């Protein structure tokens, strides 16, 4: 064996082992890469969420000011405790859902087409099995217009609704939820995440835009109000699928937290990233004062400072001057173009009554025959200022005023204007001893002819008396004005919403045939604010 050749080489096990070690190393390296990339994305998302949190904090503390970005809220869901809840393990039940009105959802919850009308939301009562009340409005209705105009204010008011049940507060299974496309972030997300304003078209990139579920948990404690806001993101495919199938946001969050399947859909939402912030303030959370909670006279006067900030000073002397008595023989007091501003008088033939306009020294024509009827208005139609209320000037609706025909005794006859129709004809109302309201189209005791006055004040009422009622709270509303050292300040912002009950007066008007009232959303939730 002298010439025996010894060949030294790696054996197959050695090579296999070496390859194994290298492969193991490579796999380890490659498996780390996604973590690095995910960490970058997570950092970006964290930054965005922090910016979003700052926005929501200031927006809620400011009591939902008018900000166009609230159109990025796609859906709001509110919950309530099941009747008689004392068990801290119980979860809140879904009460109301509101959809972004700009979306124009064209079908009802059952999928039935609405044919020119849109679904704005729905409310369930405590009987979860009963069909919910759906809020459906025609696209061209004033109520729908107002729902869009008040969407921001409504969202803020709903989200601030405090928990009213201690068991739920303890359980933590409650809150008001919103589905939001983020305001901050890449411009791609901002533009592609924009509200599509229709369900008809597809916006394929929209799902890629960053969005999140916002949970707001407000409650009042002994020292003031507190709001916890939590963010859940990203919206995984499972979450998007569930949202598209109208699964509740609370259940989606629960499924993600507990890793249990969604009842009904059966899928489990992966764990969301989440972040929570707590806002504490000495200001308590109180119900919003709605315009519909004011009587017509209060509405008219409060419209005068309607756009002022809370705490802003109201010049009462100027208010009295601006809302001074109107005299039909001094139409607009000569402040407007006198060539088109003609004097007025009432006529009454015991069948109909109306307004006549003096076209020259001796000639009076019926309002309907007056050529400038739509320039030089007699009674301004109420519909004109349903959409947008500015300070109540003479050229804006007359509802809430009192008619004083010359020669008629008061207070037996107090003609309170409830509504002015599109023919510039006022509808009057009378409060009955029973508390009911009667609408009067043909008013008694009206003279056959004569001039008239319009006044913001009731017969025998003084401005001091009226202002005195505004600085007081009553059973229905809070203070409208604050008085301090002889000066007056706006006590709270009076808000408007489509989602509310109709007032008795509105119901009476609707019964009398005045059209255009919104649905009676008796079960709609209250709006809330920081006082």
């Amino acid at each position, binding site marked *: 064996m002298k*010439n025996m*050749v*010894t*060949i*030294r*080489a*790696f054996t197959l096990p050695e090579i296999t082992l070496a390859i194994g070690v290298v492969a193991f190393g490579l796999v380890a390296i490659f498996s780390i890469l996604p973590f*690095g*990339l995910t960490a*970058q994305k997570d950092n*970006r998302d964290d*930054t*965005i969420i*922090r*910016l979003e949190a700052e*926005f929501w*904090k*200031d*927006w809620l*503390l*400011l*009591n*939902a*000011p*008018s*900000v*166009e970005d609230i*159109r*990025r809220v796609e859906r709001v869901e509110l919950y309530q405790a099941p009747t008689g809840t004392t068990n801290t393990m119980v979860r809140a039940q879904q009460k109301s859902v509101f959809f972004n009105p700009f979306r124009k959802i064209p079908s009802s919850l059952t999928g039935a087409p609405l044919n020119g009308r849109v679904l704005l939301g729905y409310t369930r009562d405590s009987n979860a099995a009963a069909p919910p009340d759906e809020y459906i409005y025609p696209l061209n209705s004033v109520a729908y217009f107002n729902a869009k105009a008040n969407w921001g204010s409504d969202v803020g008011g709903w989200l601030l609704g405090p928990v009213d049940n201690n068991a739920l507060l303890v359980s933590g299974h409650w809150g008001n939820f919103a589905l939001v496309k983020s305001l*901050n*972030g*890449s*411009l*791609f*997300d*901002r*533009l*592609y995440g*924009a*509200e*599509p304003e*229709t369900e008809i*078209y*597809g*916006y*394929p*990139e929209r799902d890629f835009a960053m969005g999140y579920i916002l949970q707001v948990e407000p409650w009042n404690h002994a020292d003031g109000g507190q709001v916890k806001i939590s963010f859940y993101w990203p919206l995984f495919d499972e979450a998007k699928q569930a949202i598209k199938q109208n699964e509740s946001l609370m259940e989606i969050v629960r499924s993600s937290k507990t890793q249990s399947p969604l009842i009904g859909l059966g899928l489990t939402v992966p764990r969301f990233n989440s972040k929570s*912030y*707590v*806002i*504490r*303030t000495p*200001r308590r959370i109180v119900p919003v004062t709605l315009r519909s909670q004011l009587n017509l006279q209060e509405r008219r006067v409060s419209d005068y400072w309607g*756009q*002022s*900030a*809370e705490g*802003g000073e109201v010049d009462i002397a100027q208010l009295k001057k601006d809302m001074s008595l109107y005299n039909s023989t001094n139409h607009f007091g000569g402040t407007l173009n006198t060539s088109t501003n003609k004097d007025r008088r009432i006529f009454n033939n015991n069948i109909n009554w109306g307004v006549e306009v003096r076209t020259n020294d001796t000639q009076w024509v019926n309002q309907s025959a007056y050529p400038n009827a739509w320039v030089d208005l007699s009674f301004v139609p109420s519909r004109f200022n349903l959409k947008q209320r500015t300070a109540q000037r003479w050229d804006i609706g007359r509802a809430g005023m009192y008619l004083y025909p010359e020669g008629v005794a008061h207070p037996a006859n107090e003609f309170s204007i409830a509504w002015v129709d599109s023919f510039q004809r006022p509808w009057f109302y009378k409060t009955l001893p029973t508390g009911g309201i009667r609408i009067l189209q043909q008013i008694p005791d009206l003279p056959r002819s004569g001039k008239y006055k319009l006044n913001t004040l009731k017969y025998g009422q003084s401005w001091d008396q009226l202002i005195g009622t505004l600085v007081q709270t009553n059973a229905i509303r809070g203070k409208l004005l604050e008085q301090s050292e002889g000066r007056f300040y706006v006590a709270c*912002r009076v808000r408007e919403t489509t989602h509310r009950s109709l007032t008795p007066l509105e119901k009476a008007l609707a019964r009398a045939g005045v059209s255009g009232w919104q649905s009676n959303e008796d079960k709609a939730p209250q709006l809330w604010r*920081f006082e």
Partner: protein
Amino acid sequence: MTSGLRSSGRKRAFTMVELMGATTIAIFLIIILYNLFDKVQSVFVVGQSRALAMEDGRIAMDLVAEDFLLLESGVGGERPNLLWHEADGVLGVSSNWKFYMITNRVGRVAPPYRNFLDLNRNMFDTNRIARPTDSKFDLYHHDCSFFRGGDYWKYIRYKFGGRENYRTILKQDPARVNVRVDEEYFQEYIYLANQFTAPPNPVYPHNINNVVIRNPVIDQVDTPVGALWVYYSPDTVKGRVLGEEMRHQQLIRLDSQNLNQGGAGLDELSAYEKLIDGVIHFRVRASRSEALGVREYVPSENPFSGFEDVRYVEVELAILDRKLLKEVEEGMEQQLEGLPPVQKRLRRLERIAENLDRVYFFKKLINLQGGGGNE
């Protein structure tokens, strides 16, 4: 002795074929690994660039918010508490353009229409498809100042300006065109383009155009990208802060005079500091009441004079990430050579519109009434 293999009489080495095979495999592996590394590296750089942009934007917004939070009313008599400024100079532009930069967008970017599909018809139909209204992003270049209270008082001015210099000069554009945009008719100077769909149509641009430059101003500037500049007066007491505003104005005047006389301006850029680079949008709006929306005001309509408080301020900022900034600025220089400045600006805006995922938007609502703490 170079090989681990050896025989007793003669050295054995790898054959040429073996070596070539090994080299080929090695090269193949190196190429794969390089590609992988390159991909990872570029993803990392993009991610890093985004992270930096987010960080820069967040810091800038924090600083802006901190200053606005201490905005004080009633300092300068009838001097508005928050003042939006016109451009630094008005050259050959009619007087009604003076406040152009305050109330008008200077441009717009939007995704192309074809990105919004009609599911019913499964086709692109510009006549039927409504692009979501806020999917169009209007660009503003604001310049505003206010007094900051607190322990020490300051006069503060935030201004969108060029990347190298804070100045923004209005100048009439000789190549102006009048066009119809989005159902509105503007007797203004508008440039439109959309390289994603079709050549620009100046008559009915609402069908195709997703990039708009709309102004008669800054036509000597060849880019829509600028920087956010800030001027801080020295700390002072309340009684002297109006004087600081005058001192600032004097500095600006001196700078202008120096420039107009052929100089390079003052050495210190009139004490402006560049807060953040790569900005395409800076907008400040304010409101005096929760019931009113926010807006910007020309001086004659400014409601925030005397003791009329600003209730809340909304600040918006949009910035490019550094990589995109480089691509849009230096990267396109050669490609745009010879084009007039306004065309260069337009083409650059187009490039930005193609990379919306690399442009970052920040919005802050600044509650000047306080009212809560947070944790």
